[in-house]
């Protein structure tokens, strides 16, 4: 059953926007990281949809690379969260204002 790529693009747009709104409105750092994962998955979905549309494998190859990069990013991000919690005893972004931004 062929799936029209427009539908996949709409799904990926929805996922991206949900992730972006999550990054913007949530205060918990862990949930912000989860929303960033959603955004990366939306990008991945686009890569794979176009890989199928153009009959080209490069999209899938870079999808795998994106997943690897996302794994590294989550590891470093969660390590930062742990260091933050150890030093400031909070995971809410608006309570971290040493720089008075």
């Amino acid at each position, binding site marked *: 059953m062929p*799936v029209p790529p*427009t*539908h*996949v693009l*709409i*799904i990926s*747009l*929805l*996922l*991206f*926007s*949900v*992730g*972006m*709104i999550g990054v*913007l*409105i*949530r205060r*918990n750092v*862990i*949930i912000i*990281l*989860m*929303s960033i*994962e*959603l955004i990366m*998955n939306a990008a*991945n*979905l686009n890569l*794979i*949809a176009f*890989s*199928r*549309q*153009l*009959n*080209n*494998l*490069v999209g*899938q*190859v870079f*999808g*795998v*690379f994106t*997943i*690897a*990069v*996302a*794994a*590294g*990013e*989550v*590891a*470093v991000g*969660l*390590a930062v*969260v*742990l*260091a933050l919690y150890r030093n400031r005893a909070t995971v*809410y972004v608006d309570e971290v204002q040493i720089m008075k931004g």
Partner: protein
Amino acid sequence: MLAAVAVSSAVMVVLSRNAIHAAIYLVLSFLSMAGLYVILEAEFVAAVQVLVYAGGIMVLFLFVIMLVNLRDPSGSRVGLHGVLSGGVGLAVVALILSVYGRGSLPASSAEGSVLRQGGNLEAVGQAIFADYLLPFEIVSVLLLVAMIAAIVLARPIPKD
């Protein structure tokens, strides 16, 4: 169907008050996205998605949620800031939709699918190890660097 599950559980990730519930919904979203990848003839990426995301990354998230025991879940108070940023988000969505309306998709290629030569795994493996060997090695070095960075950051501060 899968798309509806993926999008609605993504919404629940953002809306749920408890971080553990958010993590479980995130697993659901990742799994249904893996189903979408299978539909789009990317079986290898789907398998990697299940292994890396639903396996590894979620365990990492849950460990950190357990370590950082959460206080009262007052995290989803939506004030002026929330309304403002939600408005910005919707504006970006409208922007992207208008771009979608303008563009036209390239025509689908001919029948003989290059994605399926000898199964998807073999095709992807050939592409990675023949044409994209240098990016592959760079990704491996990147993962090593990320691992070292995570260990250094999460290490207890030495008393000296």
